[in-house]
């Protein structure tokens, strides 16, 4: 079933990524980690469908936020990030997926690991934790190219410096801020051992990012003693967004 969402706000996260806030009539709310399918139809009837993770916490007001990264050769993302304006309408199907989700009833420690725009559904979990007033301890390891490519920077800073129990670690892969203690590089076993929950606590791990990132990170988590059945993954397509098959 397709619903109509009206754009009510736009916010640039980085020079290439934009958060789109939609107001959706009869939205049944969602669970953190779910995605939606977005359908755009041209005047000649050609339509394209893409999947995007929901960034916002579940709410009863019919508000859905998506953060879309612009792909240079993309068919849909350049439109969504550059041309879409407040007041425009898009079609949505969802919320979709009951596997890669965090519910506020969960009580175990949570380990989130994001690669690039894979932060989006994990941000929904962090926001959902706050809005549900959950006290479950979260750790977020966010692998990102460089400081300027970080999504939700101020909000993450505020949440993690509140003295609560959300711990944030950045892992820069190409360029670091000045005087950063670690050289740029991919997540490795020592960084996981240093920053993640001990596997003895049996955390549930959520890993989201490009397929190669998810593969290597999930394998490292297993190497570090995590149970494979406690690792949930969400892969993005090779181009950084989920492919269409329509």
């Amino acid at each position, binding site marked *: 079933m397709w619903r109509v969402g009206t754009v009510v706000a736009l916010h640039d996260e980085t020079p290439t990524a934009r958060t789109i806030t939609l107001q959706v009539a009869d939205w049944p709310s969602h669970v953190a980690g779910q995605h939606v399918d977005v359908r755009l139809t041209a005047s000649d009837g050609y339509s394209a*469908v893409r999947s995007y993770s929901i960034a916002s916490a579940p709410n009863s007001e019919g508000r859905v936020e998506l953060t879309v990264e612009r792909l240079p050769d993309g068919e849909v993302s350049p439109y969504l990030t550059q041309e879409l304006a407040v007041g425009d309408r898009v079609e949505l199907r969802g919320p979709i997926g009951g596997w890669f989700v965090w519910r506020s009833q969960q009580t175990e420690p949570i380990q989130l690991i994001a690669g690039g725009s894979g932060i989006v559904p994990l941000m929904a979990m962090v926001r959902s934790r706050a809005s549900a007033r959950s006290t479950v301890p979260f750790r977020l390891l966010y692998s990102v190219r460089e400081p300027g490519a970080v999504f939700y920077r101020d909000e993450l800073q505020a949440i993690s410096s509140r003295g609560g129990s959300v711990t944030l670690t950045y892992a820069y892969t190409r360029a670091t801020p000045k005087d950063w203690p670690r050289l740029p590089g991919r997540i490795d076993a020592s960084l996981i051992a240093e920053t993640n929950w001990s596997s003895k606590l049996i955390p549930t791990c959520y890993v989201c990012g490009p397929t190669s990132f998810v593969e290597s990170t999930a394998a490292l988590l297993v190497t570090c003693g995590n149970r494979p059945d406690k690792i949930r993954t*969400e*892969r993005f397509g090779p181009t950084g967004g989920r492919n269409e098959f329509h």
Partner: protein
Amino acid sequence: MARQAVAMSSTNYDYLDGNAAAGELSKVFAVDITTAEGRCGECGTTKCLAEAHLYMHGPGLVARCPACEHVLLRLVNVREHMFLDFRGMTYLRLDTSRSEEAS
């Protein structure tokens, strides 16, 4: 450990998670079947369909077993009809208690 074995043997990462098929499957199923546990007809691995390797760049969708890459599910849309082939699994175990959450 099966996941690792597959990761090392794959040369290109051209698949997503079974998760990504949930929207297309919601067109015809009342419950989210990506959270259903399926047993691979080849190696017997039992996992959620959301954990399958999903190939989306053909004319339809193909979900393969994450342990042995056996084809579990094929889905093709031809105009007003959806063709579904589930014969790669010996069963699917569905949780019907959360059907109200399905889209």
